[in-house]
C-alpha cells in the first residue's frame, strides 16, 4: 500500500487540486447567493486546515526513519513543492509584495537573495548531506567532526536561528486566523499553533511532507489567481509577467508628476504605527550597489545554512534526486517570487493613477472616505489618509498603507469578489503554517535526535525516542506561540535575522565539512560558536546605537558573523592536528554518490 501511495501521488494531488478549485467555485456561488464575507473567510480557513489535519493523521507513523526523513522516498518534484511551501513563509506571502511596493529596488535584493541561495544549496551541500544519510543537520556536524561538543554547538546555532524564525511564522498564522475567524490575536495565535501541530505531531517529517505539498497547491493558487485576474480586469495584460512594462513606466511618470514630498515629522506622528507612504521610486535603482549586494549575499548564504530547508533534501530517494529536487524547489518558488513585483505594480498603479476608476490620488478627501474598501481597511488599521497641506485633495504623500494591505486589500480595491479575499487568507495561512511546521520540526528533531538520543541516552528505544520528539514538538510550539503572543518584533525583521544567525554559525562549518578535508573538530567548534557570538555581538551593538562598519547593518550582520566564523575555522583547524584517517575516508565517501550512506538507514 505504501509503494502504491507514492506511485499514485500525481493522481492523489490531482484530485485534491480539482477538489480545491471546486470548493472555490462553490464559495463563489454561495457568495452570489448571499453568503456573508465573514462566513466565507471562516469556511476557507477551516476547510483547508481540516484537510491538512486529515493528511497529518493519515501520515502517522511509529518508525524512526519515517518520522525523521519521511522514509527517504519523496519523489523529486513533490519534494520540490514541499520545499517551496517550507520555504515560502507568511513573510513571502503576505509581506513581500508590500515590501516591494514601498521600498522598490533596495528591497528586491531579497528576491535575488532568497532564490540565488539555492544554487549554493544544490552545488555545495544538499547532495553531499543526502549521501551522508543524516536525520538532522547537527547529525552531519556531529559525525563529520566527531564529538558531542561539535554536535551540541550545531544544535545551539540551529535553535537560535530557527526559533527566531518560527515566532514570526506563528505570529503570521495568528494574524490571519484572527482576521479570518474574527477572534482576538492572543487566542488566534494558539488556534494557529494547534493547526500547525496537527500536521506534524503524528507523522513527523512524513506528515509535514504531505501537508506541505497540499499547502503549496493552496498558496500558489491563492497568489497567482488574483494577480492574473487583476491584470486582466485592469486591461494591463493577459499575462502580467510579460506585459506590465507600460504600467511600470506609467508609475515612473506619475512619480515624476507628483514628486516625493517629504512630510513634516509632526505630521507623521499622527499616522498609525506600521503604516507607510510611498517615498521611494518603483523601478529606479535607489540603493547603492553594496547595500543591494550585501543584503542579497547575506540571504543567499543564510539560505544554504537554514536547517529546515536542508533537511528537506534528506527525504529524497537518492543523491541524484536531491540535486534535481533543488531545481524543482526553486522553480516552484520562482512562480510566486516573480509574481510579487507584478502584484506590487498592479496594486500601486490602481491606487495612484488618477486615470483609473480605482485611483484615489487627486480625489477629494470626502470622496475617498466614502469608498467602501477604504472604510474597511481603515478600520482594520491598514490604511490612513490625512490632509497635511489642507487643500482638500489627496496627495501622494498623504496616503498611508500597511505592508500587508498590498496582498490582502488589492483584490478588493480592484473590485474582485470577496471569495478571492477568502482564498488569499487561506493561502497566507498555508504559507505560514507550512514554514512553521518545518521549523518546529527542525528544532524538535535536533533536540530529540542529537541531544537526547545521541548524547543523553544512546540506548533509548524507538518508541521512547519518538515520544520525546513529540513532547518537544509541543513544548517548542507553545514556547514559540507564547513569545509570538507578546508581539515583540515585526514579521519580516525577525525572518531576516534568522538567516543572519544561521549563516554566522553554520555556513562555513557545513561547506568546509564537505569541501575541505583538513577541517577538524576544534576548527568547526570555534567556527560555529565564534561565528554565532560575533554575529550576535554585532547585532546588539548596532541595535544599541553602534555605528557599524563597512555598511553592514542589522539586516546583514551575518556577513560579519560568517567572516569571523571562516577565519576562526581555518586558523584553529591549521593550528591543531588534522582529522584522522577514518574521517578523511568518510569525506571521500561523501563526495561520490554511489555506495552506502555514511550513517545507517536507521540510526
Amino acid at each position: 500500500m505504501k509503494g502504491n501511495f507514492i506511485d499514485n501521488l500525481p493522481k492523489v494531488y490531482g484530485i485534491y487540486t480539482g477538489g480545491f478549485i471546486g470548493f472555490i467555485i462553490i464559495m463563489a456561488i454561495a457568495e452570489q447567493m448571499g453568503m456573508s464575507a465573514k462566513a466565507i473567510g471562516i469556511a476557507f480557513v477551516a476547510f483547508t486546515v481540516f484537510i491538512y489535519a486529515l493528511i497529518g493523521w493519515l501520515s502517522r507513523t511509529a518508525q524512526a526513519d519515517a518520522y525523521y526523513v519521511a522514509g527517504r522516498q519523496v519523489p523529486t518534484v513533490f519534494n520540490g513543492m514541499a520545499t517551496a511551501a517550507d520555504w515560502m513563509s507568511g513573510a513571502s506571502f503576505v509581506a513581500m509584495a508590500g515590501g516591494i511596493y514601498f521600498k522598490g529596488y533596495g528591497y528586491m535584493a531579497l528576491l535575488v537573495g532568497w532564490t540565488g541561495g539555492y544554487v549554493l544549496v544544490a552545488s555545495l551541500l544538499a547532495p553531499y548531506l543526502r549521501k551522508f544519510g543524516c536525520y538532522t543537520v547537527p547529525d552531519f556536524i556531529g559525525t563529520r567532526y566527531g564529538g558531542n561538543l561539535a554536535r551540541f554547538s550545531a544544535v545551539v546555532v540551529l535553535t537560535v536561528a530557527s526559533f527566531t524564525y518560527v515566532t514570526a511564522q506563528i505570529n503570521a498564522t495568528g494574524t490571519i486566523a484572527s482576521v479570518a475567524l474574527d477572534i482576538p490575536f492572543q487566542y488566534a495565535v494558539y488556534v494557529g499553533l494547534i493547526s500547525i501541530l496537527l500536521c506534524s505531531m503524528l507523522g513527523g517529517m512524513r506528515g509535514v511532507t504531505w501537508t506541505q505539498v497540499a499547502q503549496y497547491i493552496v498558496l500558489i493558487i491563492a497568489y497567482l489567481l488574483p494577480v492574473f485576474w487583476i491584470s486582466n480586469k485592469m486591461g494591463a495584460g493577459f499575462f502580467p509577467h510579460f506585459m506590465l512594462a507600460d504600467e511600470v513606466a506609467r508609475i515612473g511618470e506619475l512619480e515624476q508628476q507628483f514628486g516625493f514630498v517629504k512630510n513634516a515629522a509632526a505630521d507623521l506622528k499622527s499616522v498609525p504605527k506600521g503604516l507607510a507612504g510611498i517615498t521611494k521610486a518603483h523601478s529606479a535603482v535607489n540603493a547603492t550597489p553594496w547595500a543591494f549586494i550585501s543584503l542579497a549575499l547575506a540571504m543567499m548564504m543564510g539560505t544554504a545554512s537554514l536547517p529546515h530547508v536542508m533537511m528537506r533534501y534528506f527525504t529524497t530517494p537518492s543523491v541524484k534526486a536531491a540535486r534535481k529536487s533543488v531545481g524543482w524547489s526553486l522553480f516552484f518558488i520562482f512562480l510566486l517570487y516573480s509574481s510579487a513585483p507584478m502584484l506590487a505594480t498592479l496594486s500601486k498603479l490602481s491606487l495612484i493613477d488618477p486615470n483609473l476608476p480605482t485611483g484615489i490620488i487627486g480625489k477629494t478627501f470626502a470622496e475617498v472616505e466614502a469608498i467602501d474598501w477604504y472604510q474597511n481597511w481603515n478600520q482594520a488599521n491598514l490604511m490612513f489618509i490625512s490632509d497635511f497641506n489642507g487643500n482638500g485633495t489627496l496627495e501622494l504623500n498623504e496616503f498611508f498603507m500597511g505592508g500587508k494591505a498590498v496582498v490582502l486589500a488589492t483584490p478588493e480595491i480592484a473590485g474582485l469578489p470577496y471569495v478571492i479575499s477568502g482564498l488569499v487568507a487561506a493561502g497566507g495561512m498555508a504559507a505560514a503554517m507550512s514554514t512553521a511546521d518545518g521549523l518546529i520540526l527542525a528544532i524538535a528533531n535536533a533536540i530529540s535526535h542529537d541531544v537526547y538520543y545521541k548524547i543523553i541516552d544512546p540506548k533509548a528505544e524507538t518508541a521512547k525516542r519518538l515520544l520525546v520528539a513529540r513532547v518537544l514538538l509541543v513544548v517548542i510550539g507553545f514556547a514559540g506561540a507564547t513569545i509570538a503572543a507578546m508581539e515583540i518584533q515585526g514579521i519580516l525583521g525577525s525572518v531576516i535575522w534568522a538567516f543572519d544567525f544561521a549563516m554566522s554559525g553554520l555556513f562555513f562549518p557545513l561547506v568546509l565539512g564537505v569541501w575541505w578535508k583538513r577541517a577538524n573538530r576544534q576548527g568547526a567548534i570555534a567556527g560555529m560558536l565564534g561565528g554565532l557570538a560575533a554575529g550576535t555581538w554585532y547585532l546588539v551593538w548596532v541595535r544599541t546605537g553602534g555605528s557599524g562598519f563597512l555598511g553592514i547593518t542589522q539586516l546583514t550582520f551575518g556577513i560579519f558573523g560568517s567572516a569571523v566564523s571562516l577565519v576562526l575555522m581555518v586558523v584553529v583547524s591549521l593550528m591543531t592536528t588534522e582529522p584522522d584517517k577514518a574521517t578523511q575516508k568518510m569525506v571521500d565517501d561523501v563526495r561520490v554518490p554511489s555506495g552506502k550512506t555514511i550513517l545507517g538507514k536507521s540510526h
Partner: protein
Amino acid sequence: MSNQQKHWEKTRSLLFITLAIWFVFSIGIFLFGAEMNEVTGPFGYPWTYWFTCQGSLGAFVILIFWFANRQEKIDEEFGFSEREDE
C-alpha cells in the same frame, strides 16, 4: 591519479563554473545596477528591474538543472552514479 581523485577534480571544476555563473547573476550585474537600468530590456522593462523581478531568478533555476545534469554525467563517466537498488 586514482579514479576518485579525477572524479573529484572534475566535480570541483564544475563547482567553480557554477559559482562563477551564480556570481554574475547574483552580484556581478548589480554592481552596474544604475547604469544598466537606463537601458530598455526584455518585454520593455528596464534591464536591472527585469533582472531583479525575473531574470536572475530564472537564471538560477536553469543553472541548477544544468548543474545537476552535468554532475550526473561526471558521476556516470567515472562509474560513481547510484544503482537503482541502493
